[in-house]
Every structure is written in structure tokens, then in C-alpha cells.
């Protein structure tokens, strides 16, 4: 039983040495920043509906546009990367992260030219997202149509 004793001593050492609560902390940060971005989005939506008199669909587009604009600006200024280091998925999952994934490589590959650099590399992450998003949407639409033809 000396082995298990040794093992628990080792476990204790690992617990002591390894950075404590790094994972729960990063989850909290992702929750807080992601939630904040969504709350800002709600504010922009409300501005669209109540101040600009848009319908819900246009207000959503207005909200997306403002968030994408802010994300592009903050990425350009180098601020969004700092937010990203702090927030992890909290800055990746919202639409601002999608915009960041376009702007960041577009800027970085400017030195390779405006066509094969900016034009091509801006889709490094956004490309797959659009491929899978659009393809699955076509699939969903076709399936919905087939189901309606079958009389459901």
C-alpha cells in the first residue's frame, strides 16, 4: 500500500504546483465577456426597434452590423486580441468573434498582397463556417420542402 501512499503524495504535489482554478476561472471569464457582448447586442437591438423604428428582423441586422463594425475596429486597433486572451471562447463564439476571424488574418496577410493575401486569407476560419453553415442551411431547406411535399 506504499504505492498508493506515494501516489497520493504525488497528487498533492501536483495539486500544489499546478495553477489552481485556472479552468473554472477561464469558464467564468468566457461566461462574463460572452454574456456582456450579448447584452450589448440586446441594447443595439432595442435601439433598432425603439429609436430607429425597425422591425425585429432589421433590428437584428442592425445589431449584427454594429457588433461586426465594433469588432473590426477593435481588431484593427489590436484591442480585440487582448480581449480574446482574457475571455477565450467568450470572444470567439459571439458574432464579434466571427468578424475578428475575418479581420485578423486579412490584416496579417496584407504583406502577401491584396488579392492572394487579404482576399484569400480572410476566409481561413470564416470560409469553413460559411461552407458548413450554408450547406447545412440548403440541406435544412430541401428537407423541409420534401417533408411538406410528403404532406407533413
Amino acid at each position, binding site marked *: 500500500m506504499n504505492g498508493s501512499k506515494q501516489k497520493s503524495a504525488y497528487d498533492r504535489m501536483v495539486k500544489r504546483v499546478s495553477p489552481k482554478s485556472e*479552468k473554472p476561472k*477561464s*469558464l467564468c*471569464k*468566457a*461566461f462574463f465577456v*460572452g*454574456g*456582456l*457582448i*450579448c*447584452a450589448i*447586442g*440586446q*441594447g443595439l*437591438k*432595442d435601439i433598432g426597434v425603439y429609436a430607429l423604428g425597425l422591425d425585429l428582423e432589421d433590428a*437584428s*441586422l442592425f445589431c*449584427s*452590423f454594429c457588433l*461586426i*463594425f465594433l469588432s*473590426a475596429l477593435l*481588431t*484593427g486597433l*489590436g484591442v480585440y486580441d487582448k480581449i480574446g486572451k482574457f*475571455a*477565450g*471562447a*467568450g470572444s*470567439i*463564439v*459571439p*458574432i464579434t468573434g*466571427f*468578424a475578428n476571424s475575418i*479581420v*485578423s488574418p*486579412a*490584416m*496579417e496577410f*496584407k504583406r502577401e498582397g491584396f488579392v492572394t493575401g*487579404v482576399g484569400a486569407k*480572410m476566409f*481561413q476560419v*470564416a470560409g*469553413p*463556417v*460559411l461552407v*458548413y*453553415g*450554408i450547406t*447545412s*442551411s440548403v440541406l*435544412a*431547406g*430541401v428537407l*423541409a*420542402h420534401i417533408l411538406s411535399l410528403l404532406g407533413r
Partner: protein
Amino acid sequence: MLLMYVKAFVIGGLICTAGQLLLLYTRLTSARILVLFVTLGVALTFFGVYEPFASFAGAGATVPLTGFGYLLGKGAIDGAREKGFLGALSGGTAAAAGGIAAAIALGYLAAVLFTPKTKE
């Protein structure tokens, strides 16, 4: 109205926390997580789950990338209802066109205007 902000904050935060869990405990890169989320959004929309969820959570459901999938899926399904196969083909991308165009155009503009800081 304040409740809507609380819901947007909590639900949006939870979706991002799910993304962070995937980052921490799987080997998925952020690109794969985004692909997963957008596809999940389309699938949940197809099964009729995301629409009530979006009207409950507001921006908490539409701002995360699953909401982008919702927009695509809803557009395609509505298009299919109105125009059949052609609507199924164009509806999703048409619904998401504003967001896609904004991200591409502003991304290009930012690349023209800004040069990234040298990495340390």
C-alpha cells in the same frame, strides 16, 4: 425590458461557456468550434427548437454563432415554404447576406486601414 438583458447576458454567457468547455477539454480548435456551433444552430432550427429559444433569450440566442446558423436555417426553411427548392437554395444565404457582407467589407476595409502590431 430589463429582464431581457438579464436573459441575454445569462444565456449568451452560457453558450460561450459551452465553447470554453470545448476549448478546455477537447482538442477542437476555435475554427472547428465555430463550425460546430453554426451547424448546430441550423440543425436546432430545423427541428424547431431554436426559434422559441431565440424569442425567449433575444440577443443571448442570436448574437452567438449558433444564432448565425439560426438565421441561415430559418431563411432556407422559410424560402422552401414560399418558393420550393429554389427558395431552399437561396433563402438561407439571402437571410444571412447582410451579416456576411458586413463582415467581409469591414474586414477588407480594416485590412486596408490597419497594420497589425508586431508580435512580441
